[in-house]
């Protein structure tokens, strides 16, 4: 039936992006616009003794200088937390800090000037007198006695603790285990590096008292809500938030940031349009970051490789403030994934969320799930080696069998569907796994360090059933909205609450609508990002757009089809149940008489002329649906990589990478492959090169792209991808998320490959990133 769903249509948004014609926030230029710059802390932790803004204010071209206190006096509110686990302490966060600076990059004052250059000069003229304080940057050390206190509101630096699983079953498993694998590991801090840095432009209309804010957001409606209800105080109906083309987010543009409060506040104050654009260094020191866990974990097994227990304790670094969804990531998106692909009874996980003198940490592509996959798949790999079982064989032994779905794990989730055996069959065959092992044995004889890494990973994507989210601490619901407006000529506009910042929704959603209504994709336009146009929408993150946003579109389409049938039945003088809606052509006809059909365009036109509608049917042809998902979806993957480690220098070279993923039904294979490959590249970045590193004073050592190493294209062979499709029963499209699976699986696949290469030297584990020096030192240590 599907004509467009399942086909690799080229992305319709690409011509404008690759020709430099995208419309980004930084491109916006308004008459009489002024430019905002923020004075930021050079200290990791310091008390503010005095702020002198006189020199800055006197600089020609400076319009005004404001401190944090000025903003508070002017009515701004504290930044709220949107995910409140039980007994959480959410310390005060003002848009600009007033008492102490708590991380390098913390904002203390702002300047608005006639040009961006003058604003930058004026920022240098603001004099802040600090009293330097000792800093703490490590997630676990922050919770130790005597650690410097980041907020007086949380004197032990602990924001929250959380636990999940069956502790008694876990303890029993370890008591009766034949073999226990113990591992301490660090999942290092990552700095999200979207191509486009954050930006905001605000325009105040003093006549109507309307504010328009353009901001680089993955979810403009929730940002408008937070601005209205908590931070800016302009009511929702007088505040329009527009998130236009956005050049990448990876999670970092979900959250509510100080600059999107300050920019409109200043615009209203000076009654001029105001623009703020982040520099790359500001991005590194203010965009919420990712990962940063310290973990002790262990796995209980029988001698035959059966996993009986998993026990995890993690300290999660939340940074200097609790970012919008920070507590969600290491709780309901991390500890709930500890079952992996495996049938294990005795799972227990606990979490301590700590405050430190670092940039806040929140969701970053994968968000909790890569951290879970990393520890499970490292433990399984070490277990395989210690028990002398092939790493794929030990995994197969523990898989949840395909006939046991839906499967209830001991850590809350009910997995929807999967066939992990078939997944591994396919990846073994594509990678020629047996040959890889034979080649490895040959290479080892010649003294070469070749490693083959395997990982099988699970993801919970498409958040979330709103009631479940609410019970876990969410302050919001996680449904999605879609409004389908059919014009009198039959052309369709889709107003989606999802937001695209690289995902290709304009193409994918058009494919879905085309098949739902029987129209051409080019007759469907997807509109997103403008709160004045779209219904309230929850936005894009957690690989939710197609499973939640796409499902809303399907449901709205069904309502349109139902209305079309009513009109057609009336005009064809037939009963609705005798009609066929042909979704390939958009024609409605009486069963058996396709020649006497009403075309989609005719029905749309009829709905608007309203000359001949059934009695009581309202004119017009548009429908809205708010879709609340029944469950998460559970994409899964099997990846295999072959690496060579340079025996002299420790450099890692990826020779082969094969990925097989089950992301459910696929709407656009081209886009999904791009998502998977891009995700893999990002995951490899964590394994090999990326690390947001702080020194003991809270100085970020990797604040520019001269130090922070995102992966480069020349690190990669051609990545081979394959798919199996087990449709998710939880949504009408049968889809699962595809945006994060690559990232979740790639990190541990590469780490396992490197450890496999070094196994003959007795190296068991090296903390990421696996830089040449760390690998080389581990090799020396093992001699």
């Amino acid at each position: 039936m599907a004509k467009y769903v399942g086909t690799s249509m080229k992305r319709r948004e690409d011509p404008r992006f690759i020709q430099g014609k995208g419309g980004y926030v930084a491109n916006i230029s308004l008459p009489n616009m002024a430019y905002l710059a923020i004075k930021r802390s050079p200290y990791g932790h310091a008390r503010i003794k005095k702020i002198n803004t006189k020199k800055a204010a006197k600089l020609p071209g400076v319009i005004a200088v404001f401190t944090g206190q000025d903003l508070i006096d002017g009515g701004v509110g504290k930044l709220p937390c949107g995910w409140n686990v039980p007994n959480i302490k959410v310390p005060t966060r003002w848009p600009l800090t007033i008492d102490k600076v708590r991380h390098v990059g913390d904002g203390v004052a702002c300047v608005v000037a006639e040009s961006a250059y003058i604003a930058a000069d004026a920022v240098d003229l603001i004099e802040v007198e600090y009293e330097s304080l000792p800093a703490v940057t490590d997630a676990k050390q922050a919770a130790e006695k005597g650690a410097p206190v980041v907020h007086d509101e949380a004197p032990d630096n602990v924001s929250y603790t959380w636990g999940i699983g069956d502790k008694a079953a876990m303890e029993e498993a370890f008591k009766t285990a034949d073999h226990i694998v113990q591992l301490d590991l660090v999942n290092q801090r990552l700095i999200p590096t979207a191509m486009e840095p954050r930006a905001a432009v605000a325009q105040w209309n003093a006549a109507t008292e309307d504010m328009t804010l353009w901001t680089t957001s993955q979810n403009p409606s929730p940002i408008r809500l937070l601005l209205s209800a908590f931070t800016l105080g302009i009511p929702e109906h007088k505040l329009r938030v527009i998130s236009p083309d956005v050049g990448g987010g990876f999670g970092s543009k979900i959250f509510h940031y100080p600059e999107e409060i300050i920019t409109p506040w200043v615009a209203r104050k000076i009654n001029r349009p105001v623009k703020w654009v982040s520099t790359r260094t500001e991005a590194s020191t203010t965009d919420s970051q990712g990962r940063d866990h310290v973990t002790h974990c262990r796995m209980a097994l029988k001698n035959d490789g059966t996993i009986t227990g998993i026990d995890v304790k993690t300290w999660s670094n939340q940074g200097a403030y609790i970012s919008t969804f920070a507590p969600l990531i290491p709780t309901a998106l991390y500890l709930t994934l500890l079952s992996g692909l495996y049938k294990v009874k005795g799972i227990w996980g606990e979490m301590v969320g700590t405050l430190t003198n670092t940039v806040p940490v929140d969701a970053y592509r994968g968000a909790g799930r890569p951290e879970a996959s990393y520890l499970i798949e490292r433990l399984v790999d070490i277990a395989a080696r210690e028990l002398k079982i092939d790493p794929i064989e030990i995994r197969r032994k523990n898989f949840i069998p395909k006939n046991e779905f839906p499967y209830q794990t001991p850590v809350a989730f009910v997995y929807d569907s999967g066939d992990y055996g078939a997944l591994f069959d396919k990846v073994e065959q594509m990678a020629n796994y047996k040959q890889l092992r034979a080649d490895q044995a040959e290479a080892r004889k010649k003294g070469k360090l070749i490693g083959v890494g395997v990982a099988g990973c699970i993801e919970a994507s498409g958040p979330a059933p709103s009631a479940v989210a609410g019970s876990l601490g969410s302050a919001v619901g996680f449904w999605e909205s879609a409004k389908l407006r059919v014009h009198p000529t039959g052309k369709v506009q889709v107003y989606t609450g999802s937001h695209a910042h690289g995902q290709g929704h304009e193409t994918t959603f058009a494919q879905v609508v085309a098949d739902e209504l029987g129209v051409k994709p080019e007759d469907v336009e997807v509109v997103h990002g403008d709160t004045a146009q779209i219904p309230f929408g929850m936005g894009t993150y957690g690989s939710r757009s197609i499973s939640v946003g796409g499902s809303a579109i399907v449901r709205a389409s069904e309502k349109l089809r139902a209305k079309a049938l009513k009109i057609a039945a009336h005009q064809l003088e037939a009963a609705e149940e005798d009609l066929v809606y042909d979704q390939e052509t958009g024609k409605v006809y009486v069963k058996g008489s396709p020649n006497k059909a009403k075309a989609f365009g005719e029905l749309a036109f009829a709905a608007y002329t309203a000359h001949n509608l059934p009695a009581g049917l309202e004119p017009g042809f548009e429908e809205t649906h708010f879709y609340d998902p029944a469950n998460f979806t559970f994409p899964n993957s099997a990846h295999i990589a072959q690496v060579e480690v340079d025996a002299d220098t420790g450099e890692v070279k990826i020779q082969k990478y094969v990925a097989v993923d089950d992301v459910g039904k696929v709407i656009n294979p081209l886009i999904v492959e791009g998502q998977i490959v891009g995700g893999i590249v990002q995951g490899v970045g964590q394994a090999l090169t990326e690390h947001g590193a702080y020194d003991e004073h809270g100085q970020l050592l990797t604040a520019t792209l001269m130090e922070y190493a995102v992966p480069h294209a020349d690190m990669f062979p051609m990545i081979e991808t394959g798919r199996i499709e087990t449709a998710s029963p939880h949504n009408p499209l049968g889809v699962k998320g595809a945006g994060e699976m690559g990232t979740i699986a790639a990190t541990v696949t590469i780490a396992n490959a490197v450890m496999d290469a070094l196994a003959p030297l007795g190296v068991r584990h090296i903390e990421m990133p696996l830089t040449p020096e760390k690998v080389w030192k581990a090799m020396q240590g093992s001699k």
Partner: protein
Amino acid sequence: MYTPTFDYYRPKTLDEAIALLGKNKGAKVLAGGHSLLPAMKLRVAQPAALVDIGRIKGLSAIKAGKKEVKIGALTTHAAVAASAELAKACPILCETAAMLGDTQVRNRGTMGGSLAHADPAADYPTVMIALEATMTAMGKKGERDISAGKFFKDLLTTALKADEILTTITVPAYRNFPNMGGCYLKHRHPASSYAVVGVAAMVGLVDGKVGRVSLAVGGATVNPVRCSAAESALVGSAPTDDAIAAAAAKVAEAIANPMSDLYATADYRIRLATVMAKRALMTAAQRAM
């Protein structure tokens, strides 16, 4: 990423440029701008004035003679990488230029700019040390030649005076000599692509034995160094794997006060220098045959 305010001059002649440098205290010469402008945008460098020499004619020619090659200081990395003349006369320069930065940097950045900036992680300085290049500078009092060994003075510091401009780099046309080979290897920083360690090796063979060798290591110290102990150990031997390994093992002797950072400690830089010296010498020796 906004520079502080500065004056900007675009002279048409070298004399005019030198006069401007003399007149404006703290002025910096702007060539390709790929080191200077990022530093200014980070406000690490705040020169009061820039003297843009980009429009001065005659500073970007490559002239290959039988014995030596003269390269104008404004020659871009891309032009060096693609030069057929250099590929014949002094191919190590093409090899180096092709590894430098990325396409944009290679299209804008210049050889003279890179040398005058004297970044410890730059590639050209190491190669110039190995090639025993000569730098020609023009100042108020006229032209003077500075040998590569005396050109690099310290971190980001050269022998150039504030009102001198590097105009020409002269290197031997070694490929015209019998049995000479060269090789440049670098270990790229994964973020910046600058050399964490770069090694340049030149090997000349006489009757199958190493007649002359020059080996330079950059990135490990503030300025690149010649590895004379390693060189002496190799001269007179056949370039066997063992002989080269034994020579490379002496590279560490040349590296006093190695640098250290988050990515590579001093120990690891020495390790890289040793391994890469061995590999560069082997390749250079093969190319000499």
